[in-house]
């Protein structure tokens, strides 16, 4: 059965070197291997690992009347799938009766089944507490892996599904770090608009899609959330016009209610400046504001055209935005003081909604293609000839927003007929639906 393993590994290598994926990123050195990094993953490539998740073992005396085994297995499975880095080993390929080996796997059996990784879990229900143990095993190396932050130690938790899910997410984040070198995104939040019968609310969506929490409710229209440094910025018509508000620790505060548009806020990486669109001087232009008071610090654009959708470079030195000053909406870049404006996109006539990746090497955006359909693309701001298409032939896909580690993108898509949020890997290779029920728009992944 060893040949199966070899094929899987060869497939991973083939994936890395195929098409537009660059082979240079396959960079396993001895030092990295010593630290548990199998491959460095960046937004232009995906390596998938085969992993097995046998049923959790009840090691306590109490019966599992709360479905803990399903909860542990389900959360592990769903999180690993959403991450886009793992293929789950089919159950038919599992060794016979994996529960009989307890928490000490017989590596040769698992190795022959074709898996590269193995997650064993056990639990005990003790009154209103549960004790949970999650362990990662490197089947290739035939050893247990020690993960950071003690996530693989036996942990006592409240009998609360949220607490249990949060613990599993911490563990999965570290599993992802072991395989890719960078911690996973679980535990971060995505803000989005949800369209309801009575208005548009701002909601938080968990990154495993298990929960949606309404943050800014109301019968009025609330739009364009931007989640950064624990603060939510959004535009709302709650006082009449499109005004800019913040939401922090349960409180809503008005930030800018100047005449005309107040929208499209984006917080600088150091949290000290807010760039937003105002139109009180007659045209929609970009301004730097104090993110706490809303005071105008500087006007960045001064043009009769439409200038909108600002997004910061991760070093805070540049701002990308959309302008139609040359006849059609295109992506532009300028220095953070408003100087040195230059056009970035030339392909397509309608390029919008940019989001600069946290690594700085990509800007994701929405473009209308030759068939009048909206799809998501990325462009390298340092080499604008490098344009990649991430979605195609699946209805309208728009409003991309990078994950905090820059390896995933959340976006809205109406491919099923209703507008839902999807998460894809940075090269578009793996795309998974995150929400259900419809009405989700303009996501902003909190950083």
């Amino acid at each position: 059965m060893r040949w199966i393993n070899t094929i899987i590994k060869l497939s991973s290598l083939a994936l890395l070197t195929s098409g537009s994926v660059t082979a240079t990123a396959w960079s396993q050195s001895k030092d990295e291997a010593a630290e548990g990094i199998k491959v460095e993953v960046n937004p232009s490539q995906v390596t998938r690992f085969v992993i097995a998740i046998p049923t959790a073992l009840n090691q306590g005396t109490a019966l599992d009347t709360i479905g803990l085994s399903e909860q542990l297995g389900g959360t592990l499975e769903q999180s690993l799938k959403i991450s886009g880095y793992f293929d789950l080993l089919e159950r038919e390929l599992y060794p016979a009766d994996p529960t009989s080996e307890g928490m000490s796997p017989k590596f040769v059996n698992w190795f022959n089944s074709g898996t590269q990784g193995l997650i064993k879990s056990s639990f005990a229900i003790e009154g209103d507490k549960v004790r949970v143990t999650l362990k990662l095993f490197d089947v290739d190396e035939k050893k247990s892996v020690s993960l950071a932050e003690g996530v693989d130690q036996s942990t006592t938790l409240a009998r609360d599904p949220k607490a249990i899910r949060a613990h599993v997410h911490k563990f999965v984040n570290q599993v992802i770090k072991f395989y890719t070198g960078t911690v996973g995104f679980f535990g971060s939040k995505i803000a989005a608009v949800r369209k309801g019968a009575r208005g548009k609310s701002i909601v938080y969506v968990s990154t495993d899609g298990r929960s949606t929490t309404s943050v800014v409710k109301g019968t009025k229209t609330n739009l364009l959330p931007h989640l950064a440094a624990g603060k939510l910025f959004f535009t709302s018509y709650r006082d009449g016009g499109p005004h800019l508000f913040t939401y922090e620790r349960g409180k809503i505060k008005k930030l800018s209610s100047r005449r005309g548009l107040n929208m499209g806020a984006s917080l600088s990486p150091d949290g000290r400046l807010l760039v937003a669109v105002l139109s009180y001087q007659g045209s929609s232009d970009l301004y730097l504001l104090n993110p706490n008071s809303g005071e105008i610090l500087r006007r960045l654009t001064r043009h009769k055209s439409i200038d909108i959708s600002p997004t910061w470079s991760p070093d805070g030195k540049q701002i990308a935005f959309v302008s139609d000053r040359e006849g059609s909406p295109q992506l532009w870049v300028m220095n953070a003081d408003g100087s040195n404006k230059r056009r970035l996109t030339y392909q397509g006539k309608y390029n919008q909604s940019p989001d600069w990746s946290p690594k700085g090497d990509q800007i994701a955006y929405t473009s209308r293609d030759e068939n009048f359909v909206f799809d998501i693309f990325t462009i390298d701001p340092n080499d604008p000839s490098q344009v990649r298409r991430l979605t195609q032939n699946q209805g309208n896909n728009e409003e991309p927003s990078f994950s905090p580690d820059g390896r995933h993108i959340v976006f809205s898509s109406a491919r099923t007929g209703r507008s839902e949020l999807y998460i894809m890997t940075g090269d578009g290779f793996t795309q998974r639906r995150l929400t259900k029920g419809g009405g989700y728009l303009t996501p902003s992944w909190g950083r």
Partner: protein
Amino acid sequence: MRNNNTEMSGSSAWNWGVVSKVIALSLIAHLSGCSGARPAKDELTKTIALLESVRKLGCAHDSLSLAEESYAKAQKLFDQKKYDEARAQASAARELAQEASDANGGKPCEAPPPPQDTAPVELPTDDDDSAVEPFEAIEAPDLQTVYFGFDSSKLSDGSISVIEENLAWIRDHREKRVIVEGHCDSRGTLEYNLALSDRRASSVVGYLKSAGIEPRRLEPVGLGSDQPASYRQDAEGYRLNRRVEFKVAR
């Protein structure tokens, strides 16, 4: 959720002459018959080849925009195996593309002017950056709606006549704060539509200010495409939605 066809940027007001030509060409091609995938495919291939060459000329022309739209429709029809209709639509698109090419004698248009960092702002400016008082807009049945061209905030002669009629009412009701609500059709991204609808409202507000209405009585509000006047997804529906409505503050 939006439809596929986005409001094009650029100069153009809607050109009814070109529109009627599209309809006529589509009808002629449709009536001419000739079924089957191959002729339709051939027509699509010829059309895209011409379209690509016209795109390279870099000329913004109504006919090119319409040719692009017609071609997209043709492709969709082809995918749906409606070959006769696809061929007709592609043929219409090719005629339009040829017209766009001929408009500049088949020569490339001049390169756009270099970007201006500090281009003069032609719209009326208002340095008052103070916060506006909260308001709730209520209907003003005596005030008429103003309509706009495709991706345009330009006031036509007809629009100005309507605004002039509204002006009389606004002057007679000095106690009223007037809410000038800009709207778009649904073809465009949310943020761009908000900005475009704001520009439409600002255009009207600019005219009212220049006619002597106090700025503090006027509130421009861009609503994007959230409150359509028509749910029809055709040219007439889009026309009805590209508008500015007048309301008053409660």
